[in-house]
């Protein structure tokens, strides 16, 4: 019989290591919300594992009083896949950044999603390489001037939500480091999901890319520049909740609800279970033409990789019995030398 679990607090999840992010970094907020959210899962510390790649955000596991691994650049999804297959009893989180998951680790990122391994991946998107001191990243906008692009970046940026949709991820969400209530709630939803849950977090790098997401962070503007997705509800935004998104053919458009000519029923209603084409339209809504959706884009249930891998072991045993090496070695053609 298991004894009643002690009730944990955010502090119980803090390790004894000094945190070495730059003062003012958005990572602090994400760490705080994660620690605050974790006790609500009701899991003991030893059941939780954080796996990260390389980059500023990937130092995260060192600051958690759980099991953890700070692995190599881009590979955390692959490590976590192996761990989950070997140990489906563990609660696994992957911590990664835009460079880690979309550049050097792009391959592992999409394969994690198409397999639907049961874990939560938090993608700290600051649109810059911070640890290597300020080169452009795969999410940096075109034209961005950085140390490695003095005349401006010429690459078209990747959109993490679109990539996740393209790989048919079963749970996709977005939040903002400074919007702490929304962030904690989104992390909680992601952790409850069965399958791979991806949470893109807009994270400010105040040293190398300060203000990249200021439109979404500033309390003064964020109600007009972001749109909180709610399942089954129409897409409404604005400080006075007087603007909405309407679908015109296959094109979303911003409409005013102020004069009463457009009603709520005319708006696009959010459906987390919708076919991915519809979700793509949301992913493509970018600032400043549109408010950027935050919250859960997609939440569907599909088979989990490790359940199926392990299910095959079980059915093989059920069908053929547990393997016997001595029997196997002596199967087929053998001969005796006396």
């Amino acid at each position, binding site marked *: 019989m298991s004894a009643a679990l002690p009730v944990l607090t955010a502090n119980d999840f803090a*390790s004894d*290591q000094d945190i070495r992010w730059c003062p003012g970094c958005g990572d602090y907020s994400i760490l705080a919300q994660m620690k605050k959210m974790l006790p609500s899962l009701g899991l*003991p*510390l*030893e*059941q939780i*594992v954080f*796996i990260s790649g*390389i980059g500023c955000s990937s130092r995260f*596991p*060192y600051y*958690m*009083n*759980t*099991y*953890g*691994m*700070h*692995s*190599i650049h881009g*590979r955390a*999804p*692959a*490590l*976590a*896949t*192996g*761990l*989950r*297959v*070997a*140990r489906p*009893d*563990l609660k696994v989180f992957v911590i990664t950044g835009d460079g880690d998951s979309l550049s050097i680790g792009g*391959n*592992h990122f999409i*394969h994690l999603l198409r397999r639907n391994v049961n874990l939560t991946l938090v993608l700290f998107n600051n649109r810059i390489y911070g640890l290597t001191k300020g080169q452009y990243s795969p999410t940096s906008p075109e034209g961005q001037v950085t140390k490695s692009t003095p005349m401006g970046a010429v690459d078209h940026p990747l959109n993490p939500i679109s990539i996740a949709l393209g790989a048919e991820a079963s749970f996709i969400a977005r939040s903002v480091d400074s919007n702490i209530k929304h962030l904690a709630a989104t992390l909680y939803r992601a952790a409850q999901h069965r399958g791979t849950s991806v949470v893109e977090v807009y994270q400010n790098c105040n040293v190398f890319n300060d203000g990249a997401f200021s439109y979404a962070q500033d309390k003064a503007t964020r109600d007009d520049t972001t749109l909180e997705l709610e399942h089954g509800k129409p897409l409404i935004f604005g400080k006075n909740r007087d603007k909405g998104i309407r679908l015109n053919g296959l094109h979303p458009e911003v409409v005013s609800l102020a004069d009463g000519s457009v009603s709520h029923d005319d708006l696009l209603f959010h459906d987390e279970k919708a076919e991915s084409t519809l979700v793509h339209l949301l992913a493509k809504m970018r600032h400043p033409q549109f408010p950027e959706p935050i919250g859960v884009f997609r939440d569907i249930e599909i088979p989990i990789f490790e359940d199926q*891998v*392990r299910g*095959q*072991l079980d059915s*093989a*045993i059920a*069908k*053929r*019995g*547990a*393997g016997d*090496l*001595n029997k*196997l*070695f*002596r199967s*087929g*053609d*053998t*001969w*005796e*030398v*006396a």
Partner: protein
Amino acid sequence: MSTDTPQAHAAKQVQVVSGITVRLAGDSGDGMQLLGTQLTNTSALAGNDVATFPDFPAEIRAPRGTRAGVSGFQVQFAAHEVHTPGDTLDALVAMNPAALVTNIGDLRKGGLLIVNEDSFEDKDLKLAKLTTSPLDEPWVENYRLAKVPMTKLTRTAVQSLGLGVKEADRCRNFFAMGMVYWLYGRDLDATLRFIQAKFSKLPDIQEANERALRAGWAFGETTELFGSSYQVEPATLPKGTYRNIMGNQAMAWGLMTAAHLSGKEMFYGSYPITPASDILHELSKYKNFGICTVQAEDEIAAICSTIGAAYGGAMGVTTSSGPGIALKAEAMGLAVMIELPLLVIDVQRGGPSTGLPTKTEQADLLQLLFGRNGEAPVPVLAARSPGDCFDTAVEAWRIATQFMVPVVILSDGYIANGSEPWAIPDVNSLKPITITHPTGEAGEKFLPYSRDADLARPWAIPGTPELMHRVGGLEKQDGTGDVSYDAANHEKMVHIRAQKVANVAKIIPPQEVIGPSEGELLVLSWGGTYGACRTAVLKGIEEGRSVAHCHLRHMNPFPSNLGQILGNYESVLIPELNLGQLRMLIRAKYLIDAVGYNRVQGKPFSVSELVEKIAEMTSGKQNMASSKLTSRAG
């Protein structure tokens, strides 16, 4: 005696010979590999010692009839112990002109040359880039030529089944097989069983192949083309139950056995690559043994998923070949840093880059020893023969878990695809592999980088209360495992990791030598060249030369008595299928001016070239007393 195998007429002569080397050569896709495997199994079942050498192109179906598309399978079966598939051929079966001209050079003078006469038409010659038929060349006189209209005879044999021409012609290889079986007094039973199982869902094809096989046998018996048949008596192998085994299969079974002996579930992460993929195929069959195989998205994910599983407490294994190993290098460094047990298996092939995917080479030794950033030592073991892959796999996992370190196993294309009789072990009699995972005490600080007597750190697995800890690629503080940039600590940790690997030498058995314990020449070899080197040295000893053989399995660390052994001989010869990688290590470590014998042609050594080299480096006939065969622990 089988009731299914027809009896030879008493009229035909039977010559008793001690051993035979045969090569079957035809189009890739003609079923030469299948035939070779059948001949091997049948010969092994007859009690012969066997050694094989499949040699095929990298292309799956190279253009028909061309030289590039020739696929060959060589087998030596003998009434005595054999370590190699043989140098020169006693018989060559050539299914087309391309197969003939690309293989004839290996047939001994006076050897038997069997050709499919029907495939020497003008169009066949053209495909092989020949203007005249090689069968009309004067050099054919050097061989005993048997021209057999295999296509016509096969069509006749299967005629009443009403198969299409294409399907009928596909039975040709079994006709050839039947002839070879008659020639060498082989039993048809095992191959008939094989045909029945393989084509059980295609009764017509099954019947056709059976008829072709029997027709080939009958043809051999009645034709005047072959003067006599040959008989090879069973070899005297040590007592036991035997089966034929291929290197990749033995590797897979060794891994499964290691998992069983250690009570661990195996997690196997792999990405397809020639010539290692058969290990993935083999392990994937045995899910009822609790083996999780994951075909990863790339080589890096293959090893990283394995490291993740090892962190979770599983037996982690990944396999690849040279190009894939190059991709895994960074992750191997992580495994070195976080000190987790792991097996990385390299089935070597010709390099660099894509190189010669289906050909063998030994040129990855230095890559595996040194191909990582920083000081990142790992133990490296090398298997010497197909069956030896089994023992090497078990030993590697024993070392990995005792020392908490990733261990490399080197195999190569030659032993991976080659086969030999294997004395089946009783798994229950093998020594268990003991692994302890620590448990936590409340209030006690856990030190994930504390050390035992071997310098191994504890393998604490997630889910264990009170032992929560973080590992990673950044340098670790001795003891606590916290991130540390301290200069003295870094140096200390580099030394600890090196010493830990050096400590492996304490548990590996002393190196053995075959031949005189001191004298003129020591042949030092490693990996898949074992058979050729051993055979050549035994020949040298037979000739009265002062030569001994030392074959290494442990490439890092070396056995502790190796230096002493090397000092007992006037010179040391190191034959390798590379430009001298072991030689460089031996020279560096023992300051001995070892001589190399190096070939990089994508194929194994022939015994004769090594015999010649040994003769060149020894003075000739010695006092037989000093050359007496001895096996000793130096």
